[in-house]
């Protein structure tokens, strides 16, 4: 194994060089043996969830390292390790606790409004068929925009708020980012709502730059009873601050990770709670056309909505998994957020994954018109899926995303969030290549009313 010297630099200190013996940090695209997939408890994508979980619980009775191939892990200060281990134990407990599962299921149905429909987008389908002599795929939209609070974030926030209560904690802190922290505000809003519902006190860290961009999110969080604490900078700084806050108040406060990044067990937990999306989708696809989709398309910011819908289909080789990242102003401009396309492997926020860093290992500032895509890292599990070749990833620019927003509004009367619009934008390239009658499922991860003003002000070329 090749070793590589890591050179960590922060703004003020030079940390000593650390030799990482087991990691190759080149962005090699070698295809890993698919048997590697089996190591990671993808289990049996059937409805026998309890059995699957029992198996994985056995395997992980001792706290695990949380690796997906070489990605993931727990790169955190020692003080957090025991906390993470405890969290993992509770997580496995609740997965198998029928009372918890029932309460969660009722809340998901009655409070969040699940299951969300799988909607046949007739006019969008016709639009693409018309461009190709009447032949083209059938497009179905998984309507996560109809969930309470208008995005898929709620699935996870709800479950984790319930875990916090079970652990006897009465305060929750959430970092701000595309997810937990609030870049777009969606995770902050979902967390605030879940905390209100369960009577937990809630503190959300948000970058001042983001607060300026989306002040309405701040208002919403305040209304829901949460305290918003500003951090100089953007969400990545807010994430760091919230983790710092958590470290200070260990045992009093629950850290609610909003997306599938961070140290183990956060990525696994978030993915697990979001995977309800994929399970429903499989069932709905079977009802509607008696089969599985040919392709599943989702936008990738940090990765929670993508993992939520992909996870169920990872073991179906006939299902293409397509992630669409934000190309911002273009991949070569440096102003984008396409982590998987243009990033390198490193450690960020506690996990080894692809990330956008400069030559000195400093995290670069990503850009996208879809604020929720502006995360310079990505879920370690997605990095793994990329490296094993299981997932394809592409990107869409700001302009393409805005155009897609307008197109879907006009053709279907749905305003997709600008983040989700990236996935819709990719249909322009995907549809001409798909055979007639192929089934595409696209995840509409959120609603776009929050983005109306941005689209309004966007200069039309």
């Amino acid at each position, binding site marked *: 194994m090749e070793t590589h010297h890591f050179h960590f630099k922060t703004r003020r200190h030079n940390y000593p060089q650390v030799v990482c013996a087991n990691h190759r940090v080149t962005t090699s695209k070698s295809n890993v043996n698919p048997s590697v997939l089996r190591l990671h408890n993808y289990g049996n994508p059937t409805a026998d969830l309890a059995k699957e979980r029992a198996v994985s619980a056995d395997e992980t009775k001792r706290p695990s390292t949380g690796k997906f191939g070489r990605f993931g892990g727990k790169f955190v200060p020692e003080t957090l390790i025991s906390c993470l281990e405890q969290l993992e134990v509770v997580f496995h407990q609740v997965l198998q606790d029928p009372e918890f599962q029932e309460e969660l299921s009722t809340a998901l149905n*009655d409070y969040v409004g699940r299951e969300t429909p799988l909607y046949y987008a007739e006019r969008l389908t016709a639009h693409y068929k018309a461009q190709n002599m009447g032949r083209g795929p059938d497009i179905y939209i998984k309507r996560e925009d109809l969930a309470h609070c208008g995005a898929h974030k709620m699935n996870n926030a709800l479950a984790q708020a319930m875990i916090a209560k079970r652990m006897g904690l009465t305060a929750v802190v959430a970092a701000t980012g595309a997810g937990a922290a609030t870049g777009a505000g969606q995770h902050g809003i979902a967390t605030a709502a*879940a905390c209100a519902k369960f009577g937990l006190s809630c503190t959300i860290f948000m970058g001042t730059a983001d607060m300026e961009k989306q002040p309405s999110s701040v208002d919403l969080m305040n*209304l*829901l009873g949460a305290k918003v604490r500003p951090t100089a900078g953007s969400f990545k700084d807010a994430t760091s601050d919230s983790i710092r806050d958590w470290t200070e108040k260990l045992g009093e406060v629950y850290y609610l990770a909003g997306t599938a990044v961070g140290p183990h067990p956060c990525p696994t937990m978030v993915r697990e709670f979001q995977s309800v999306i994929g399970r429903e989708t499989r069932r709905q696809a079977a009802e509607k056309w008696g089969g599985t989709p040919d392709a599943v398309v989702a936008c990738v910011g940090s990765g929670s909505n993508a993992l939520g819908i992909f996870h169920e289909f990872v073991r179906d080789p006939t299902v293409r998994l397509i992630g669409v990242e934000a190309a911002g102003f273009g991949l070569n401009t440096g102003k984008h957020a396409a982590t998987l396309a243009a990033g390198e492997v490193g450690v960020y926020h506690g996990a080894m994954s692809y990330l956008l860093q400069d030559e000195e290992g400093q995290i670069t500032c990503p850009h996208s018109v879809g604020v929720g895509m502006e995360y310079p890292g990505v879920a370690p599990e997605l990095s793994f899926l990329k490296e094993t070749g299981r997932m394809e990833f592409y990107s869409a620019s700001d302009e393409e995303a805005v155009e897609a927003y307008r197109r879907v509004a006009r*053709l279907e*009367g749905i*305003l997709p969030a600008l983040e989700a619009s990236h996935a819709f934008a990719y249909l322009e390239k995907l549809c001409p290549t798909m055979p007639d009658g192929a089934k595409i499922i696209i995840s509409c991860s959120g609603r776009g009313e929050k983005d109306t003003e941005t*689209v309004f002000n966007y200069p039309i070329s």
Partner: protein
Amino acid sequence: MAIRAAATSAPTARSSSALSLPPPISSSSSYSSAQLSFGRAKSTTRPRTTVGCAISCTMTREAAAVTSTEKDDSDPALWSRPDSFGRFGKFGGKYVPETLMYALTELESAFNSVKNDPDFQASKLCISAVKAELGGILKDYVGRETPLYFAERLTDHYRRPNGEGPHIYLKREDLNHTGAHKINNAIGQVLLAKRLGKKRIIAETGAGQHGVATATVCARFGLECIIYMGAQDMERQSLNVFRMRLLGAEVRGVHSGTATLKDATSEAIRDWVTNVESTHYILGSVAGPHPYPMMVREFHKVIGEETRRQAMEKWGGKPDILVACVGGGSNAMGLFEDFVKDKDVRLIGVEAAGLGLDSGKHAATLTKGEVGVLHGAMSYLLQDDDGQIIEPHSISAGLDYPGVGPEHSFLKEKGRAEYYCVTDEEALEAFKRVSRLEGIIPALETSHALAYLEKLCPTLPDKTKVVLNCSGRGDKDVQTAIKYLKV
């Protein structure tokens, strides 16, 4: 009685070409000869411009007799709601210019033919794989059925010190696509319009919610869409205007009158009169001329039907009390309709008292209004001494309507439903309360119903089941609320 005589002669007058004025009003002393007589727009030759509206507002100095609270003990299942003339008791009807009569009749027969058409029906929508056109769209596009959610913390809030109190359930119409119940009706009407071969849809809107719902469904079905909006409202709601344009609709500003909702409605009706062959007018509420009140109610009654089934699943019974806010009255009728015949279910509507009933700045039509004709139907409405419509006020745009659906007037008169009202301030308090207790931000309209719980719950015995229609979400109201609440 003079009024009733006039009312029953209206339909026959329609078919006869001779003018048949009602008998001179001599019985009631509150009339003077200077009062304009009760009349239909057809038989009186009142020029349009006097009231600035093709559908004229007539004045009936009706004494307080109609506000009697004597309950009618007859079986609600036997009431004609409406009868063949579109009347609910004496309310309702079709007070429209002759040019529109044909369109209304055509609409009514089209609606009746689809109502019983299994390919169109909604009511069985959620039971199994649905092929019915409307049911399928409601399920996959709108996101029905909406949950009946047990509001645990809200219930705790109203629990009395001895541990007793009602159980509060929220019917989550806020989870629908576009965030309100409005879309149920918009979808139904657009499907109907398509069946009629209409290619052009028009609608009026106040704050923009109904406009957005209409533009949404027109985009979905590829129909041309024109929304009339008061110029003043357009300024206040520029984001909604942009949304409608994004969805492909044309938004036309109305500058006449006070440039608000009622003027937009009149303009829309004027357009419809002109283009009746190609155009369908999507009215947003259970107001307007027959068959609209009935049609809109039918498209919304899925709310109550689902509630009945969900209540049975959840506690094996019916709700004891249904509460809903009332502007035009569509969400309330949607929830109430299936339960009107169940006399053991209390129906409570909550209107907007604005700045207070005595301030003159409110929209409490059923509490403070009088009977007259507005926008084609006889109902309660807010009018001044000259019979001119009073500009209503409420912090919530959706309740800001000076009239109310005729069926609500009827239910009030029969004593079947009770109507109360709540001020702006109480509504804002409820807005904040529910956000903090349940993490659900309700629309300001809905907040009126939620505010009424403060007065209602202390009077209820233990374990009473209260179902409140959470008719819309409040994201659109956050800026307004923040201004007033200084959160």
